């Protein structure tokens, strides 16, 4: 059984049995108000909004990994490819009930893409028609931060960013994830 299929089964099983649920729209709308508030506070400076969302995600990720490990009880991944499957099939399944497709690996196996067919965070969303938001705002940027924060806690320094988003008029929503390095045992960095 490939690691992807195995992860997929773990994820589905966990979603069914171990995850407390709430109405999806409550989550969607709450996230929407967060982004809307940031857009307002930063006066439409979408670059800053992206940055803040990433930071929020980072804070979430650092705590979310514990919940992930406690629920999933999975061990260390053998390589980054396995990590990718874990993120997509178990992580995203547990927290957002989706499993974005893992694809577009580089030959050194250090970079991949997550393609989101579904994105509950972006339901009901239309970006402001101000001629800038569709070029500058990454609405779901919090997810990049979540991955960075969560993986850092399990000794992987990664970089994640969106390269396309259906909200911007692209045909797919794609996030690019790159492994920067495995972190050797050292003191954890300060909270951001």
């Amino acid at each position, binding site marked *: 059984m490939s690691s992807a299929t195995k992860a997929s089964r773990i994820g589905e099983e966990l979603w069914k049995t171990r995850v407390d649920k709430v109405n999806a729209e409550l989550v969607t709308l*709450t996230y929407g108000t*967060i982004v*809307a508030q940031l857009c307002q506070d930063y006066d439409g400076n979408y670059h800053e909004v992206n940055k803040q969302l990433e930071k929020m995600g980072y804070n979430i990720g650092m705590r979310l990994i514990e919940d992930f490990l406690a629920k999933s009880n999975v061990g260390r991944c053998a390589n980054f490819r396995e990590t990718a499957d874990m993120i997509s099939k178990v992580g995203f399944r547990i927290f957002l009930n989706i499993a974005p497709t893992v694809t577009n690996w580089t030959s050194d196996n250090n970079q991949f893409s997550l393609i989101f067919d579904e994105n509950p965070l972006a339901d009901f969303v239309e970006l402001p028609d101000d001629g800038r938001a569709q070029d500058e705002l990454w609405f779901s940027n919090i997810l990049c931060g979540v991955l960075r924060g969560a993986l850092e806690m399990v000794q992987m320094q990664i970089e994640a960013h969106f390269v396309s988003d259906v909200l911007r008029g692209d045909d797919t929503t794609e996030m690019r994830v790159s492994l920067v390095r495995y972190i050797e045992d050292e003191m954890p960095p300060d909270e951001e």
Partner: protein
Amino acid sequence: MTQPARHAAMLSISNSGPNTMAGEKQQSTQHMHTQSQPSQGLRVPSNRKTIYDRHLNRSRSAELSRASFAFLFAEMVTYAQRRVTGIQDLERRLNEQGYPLGLRLLDLLYYRTMSSSTSSSLSSSSTSASPPNRPLRILPLLHLIHGPLWRLLFNRPADALEHSVSPETPNEYMITDNDPLVNTYISVPKEMSMLNCAAFVAGIIEGVCDGCGFEAKVTAHNQPTEMWPGRTIFLLRFGESVMEREKVLERAGVK
């Protein structure tokens, strides 16, 4: 007509955010007039995965992880906390963040109660037997909040609905939630014991009331009991104009 000033103000705020539905169109046209920039409108994906092409009830019974909600809500509170001067200010901010949600949830509630009752009300639509969807009086509005709104957000109705017994405050109503979901994973430090983060929900209620044309101020208060340490009372104070209209409608026999 005494339109509550805040309603107008909040509408423009909510429109500046991306999470908008109907209001967005209006604003964008305004933009084109005022800024005279050549706006070609929004780009849409060729597979047309836009909010206009997907069914509004698609996510009606969808579920997500409670942890995800808790994480997001906690970040929202933490973020709000960085920019406020005190507990009241923080609650005001949370309230303001919930407010635009209330306005939109109202539309969603109408839409859903209408579409689900179409079949049953078709035959009686011409008679006055079927109640109007939009509440005209305070009580039906409160029932809308206590029942359908709570079920949409929290999958259960609220726990109690009361009218103030004091003759001095006939405009005060209380909705009780014994164990608000939003506070489940929030631990409030001792020195901030007055804080109730359900102020966010109070804002949602306020949005619903204002959206219905019932000007109101809604606040969340801790009222713990032995059995329900997190018990929260949402205090709704309706404005004078609402109370006056209520009297007129009562005399006219409108229910």
